[in-house]
């Protein structure tokens, strides 16, 4: 009798033995591996390979899959919003895979919970940050009342429900990539990154869900995302849900003059920096402009001065005295509100925290204190949190209704995410997002770029 085809999992790939010659061209990405004298395919092709074998009644022995049905029982249920039901149906109709694009606050995590309960398969949830890892852990514990594993940030515990960081998954998927039937990729716009994509490639999970507010990437990486997770199967825009499942909101842009002395320092520093760029023939708009600047500025004393000047002008536009005065005005204007203050860098965040004696949450904040800060903010003990980037993504602070963007990048995604932090619906809540822009600086152009997003279509501008 002919030996049946064998499939096994090996370090993020599948190895196949006894593959009939006629079948070889029909199995996705199957290649002969001279190093191990076996056929091999990337692990994520598992579903296509097995589907082909089943469809053609070809006998095979599956030693790759190390998971079975897992009887997850929801400990509590909430009625989903109609669009959440639509999203769930769309994912099932798409072959139980695909990306959902929903604004922050639309209950993506809840949709994922419903799908885990539907699918009854061991599930691995991928997240970009440790903060999100802990948040998912709490949610999954609450809904399923079962042990939840953590992988990343010093944790190495696998369970049938496990939350991992993308970074950790890249390292460890070659070992456990055959133990989960459902893979969830939260903030999945990160997945097509040069390294992160291997978290999805090295997993055999046949069922896949991607969650994001903005799947589009400037590098066009969403095509890769869709090939690894499935096509975008459901999309809802922020305006469609505003006032219904999201709070109504306003965006107010405040253009601020610098103080005279700071303006002089700014101009001098900018001049030194631009002169160096010109002399050294550096085009910052070119692909490797920034790297070239870093390299050339480190080579000479003049270059080092130019680098210092670059930092000075940047720092002045990020956190000028007048901007700090505006922060004070807004804090006073919104007494009794729950305010998030966002900065581009940690230095500015700690500068504001030190000046106004406010809690600052950055990636440098230790886990215990980070949890205490968020808890105190949620229960109202703290009315204000200052943060640089850690609250950009996913972390749930539904009580926040005012955001002050002191400084930020030109990224549209970052600003949509920051806006999303204050949109979680609460009875009678009216969200306001303030952007503080230093007039006649690079920030003006940065602001112009990010306002191209549809979420900014109805915003007010104030000049001071």
């Amino acid at each position, binding site marked *: 009798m002919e030996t049946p085809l064998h499939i096994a999992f*090996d370090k993020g790939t599948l190895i196949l*033995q006894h593959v009939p010659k006629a079948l070889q061209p029909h199995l996705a990405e199957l290649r002969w591996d001279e*190093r191990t004298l076996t056929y091999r395919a990337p692990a994520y092709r598992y579903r296509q390979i097995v589907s082909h074998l089943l469809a053609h009644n070809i006998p095979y*022995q599956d030693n790759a899959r190390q998971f079975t049905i897992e009887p997850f029982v929801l400990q509590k249920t909430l009625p989903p919003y109609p669009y959440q039901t639509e999203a769930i149906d769309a994912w099932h109709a798409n072959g139980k895979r695909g990306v959902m694009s929903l604004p922050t606050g639309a209950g993506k995590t809840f949709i994922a919970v419903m799908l885990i309960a539907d699918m009854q398969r061991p599930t691995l949830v991928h997240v970009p940050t440790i903060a999100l890892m802990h948040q998912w852990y709490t949610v999954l514990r609450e809904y399923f009342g079962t042990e939840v594993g953590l992988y990343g940030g010093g944790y190495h515990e696998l369970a049938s429900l496990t939350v991992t960081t993308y970074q950790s998954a890249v390292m460890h998927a070659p070992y456990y990539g055959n133990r989960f039937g459902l893979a969830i990729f939260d903030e999945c716009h990160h997945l097509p990154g040069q390294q992160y994509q*291997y978290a999805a490639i090295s997993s055999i999970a046949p069922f896949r869900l991607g969650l994001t507010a903005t799947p589009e990437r400037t590098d066009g990486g969403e095509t890769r995302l869709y090939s690894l997770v499935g096509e975008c199967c459901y999309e809802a825009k922020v305006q469609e849900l505003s006032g219904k499942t999201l709070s109504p909101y306003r965006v107010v842009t405040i253009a601020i003059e610098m103080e005279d002395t700071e303006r002089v320092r700014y101009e001098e520093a900018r001049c030194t920096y631009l002169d160096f760029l010109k002399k050294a023939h550096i085009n910052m708009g070119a692909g490797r402009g920034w790297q070239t600047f870093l390299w050339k500025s480190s080579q000479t004393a003049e270059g080092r001065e130019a680098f210092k000047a670059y930092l000075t002008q940047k720092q002045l536009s990020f956190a000028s005295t007048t901007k700090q005065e505006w922060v004070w005005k807004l804090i006073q204007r919104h007494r009794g509100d729950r305010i998030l203050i966002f900065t581009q860098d940690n230095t500015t965040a700690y500068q504001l925290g030190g000046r106004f004696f406010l809690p600052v949450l950055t990636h440098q904040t230790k886990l215990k204190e980070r949890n205490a800060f968020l808890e105190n903010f949620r229960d109202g003990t703290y009315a204000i949190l200052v943060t640089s980037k850690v609250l950009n993504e996913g972390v749930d602070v539904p009580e926040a209704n005012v955001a002050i963007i002191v400084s930020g990048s030109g990224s549209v995604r970052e600003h949509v995410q920051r806006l999303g932090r204050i949109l979680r619906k609460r009875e009678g809540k009216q969200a306001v997002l303030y952007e503080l822009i230093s007039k006649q600086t690079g920030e003006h152009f940065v602001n112009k770029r990010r306002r191209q997003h549809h979420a900014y279509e109805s915003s007010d501008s104030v000049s001071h």
Partner: protein
Amino acid sequence: MLTKALIRYHIENGHIVPQFVEPTDAALLAIAEQLIAVFENSPGKPRTAVLEESKQIIDAASGIMVVKRGLEKLLLDRTEFDTAPNEELIAFREKLFTETSRLLAGEPFQDYAAYRRRVEEIARLESAPTGPEELSAKLYADLPSCQPVVAFKTLSPERLLHRYNCAQVQGLLLHCNTLTLRLADSMTAELRQLFKYLRFNQLLSTIQKEARLESTPTGALTENLYKITVDGPLNLFYKTKRYGMNLANFFVAVLHQQQWELTAELQLRNQPSYRLRLDDSCGIKPISQQFLAYIPEDIQLFQTMLHSKTDDWRITPGSHFFPLAGDFYCFPDYALVHKSGVEVAIELFHPWHQAHLIARLNTLAEQPSTKNLILGVSAELSKKPMIAEALEASAYFSALGFTFRSVPTMGALLPILESLIH
């Protein structure tokens, strides 16, 4: 390891050439010595103070800035900081922020100065500093920049410069898809360690023999080399840098070989691909201690067990490449010699060697004449369904194979050895 901005190289005809430092350069040795002294005296000092001291040396000394900063980075990598949470300060912050939140939610302040005065009054009750700058400075005095040094692993200036050169290569190998090594069959323990490193780093290899003709003053000389191509499982499908870190770590083992040549394809972001070529003449000294000539623990144990059972067999000092079908070779774990002169090799397969074992069984099935390669398979691996079936079907394994739990036992091995003599 060095970050990308600290790696020095130039491009020459499609080749990437690392800019090594001269380990005997007196000026550079003097800078290295000064920087090491700063770090040796660093325990107890906060990070910013240590960096300020090293910055003074870097700024004052002549020489290439990136090199000096690279040396500083390597010293920082050997420095341990106290990262434990400062519970007292955390408790102070919690009290203060609760109060400031209460203040800011209440009646508006006339101005910022009025608010600040109120905060300073609260701080005074907590015995905290209340000067205009002191309180702000104290508030986040446990940030990484303020963390004190706990320990520093010192080294000599010369060793630091060798480590710097090694880090240059490792920094480039992070951007590598595939690496090719050419080695002489040196039969040393270091070569065995190299293959252990390779497997430990989850890498795969193919070994092929190459003959190279060299002209010498006395005529032509043929030298036998082994070409080892090293990459990871997914390299079959993608030109990926997924294994760059594994290959960079593996380079440490290459430095311990007597004669070696390395070729690697590098793909730096937004640049065309370049080739890196290096050999033992680059002069980088080995940087890790565990490769120094010694008999590894597992061999010692194996030797003791063997001697307690028989005097007929002995372990040879190192293993060597073992010919397989076609042009391919493997590198076994142990080599044994019988008193009659018969030589036998043993290759061990651990739970993570599934694909290696399948490959070996496939090769040996096509090569029935092979007699003196014994296969040891871990009991855990042998229980995997695919492996169990493959072992069951392998006539070679049933004659020349055994299973083991943690280390091979003589009870399983000796009957096979004896069968080879008789």
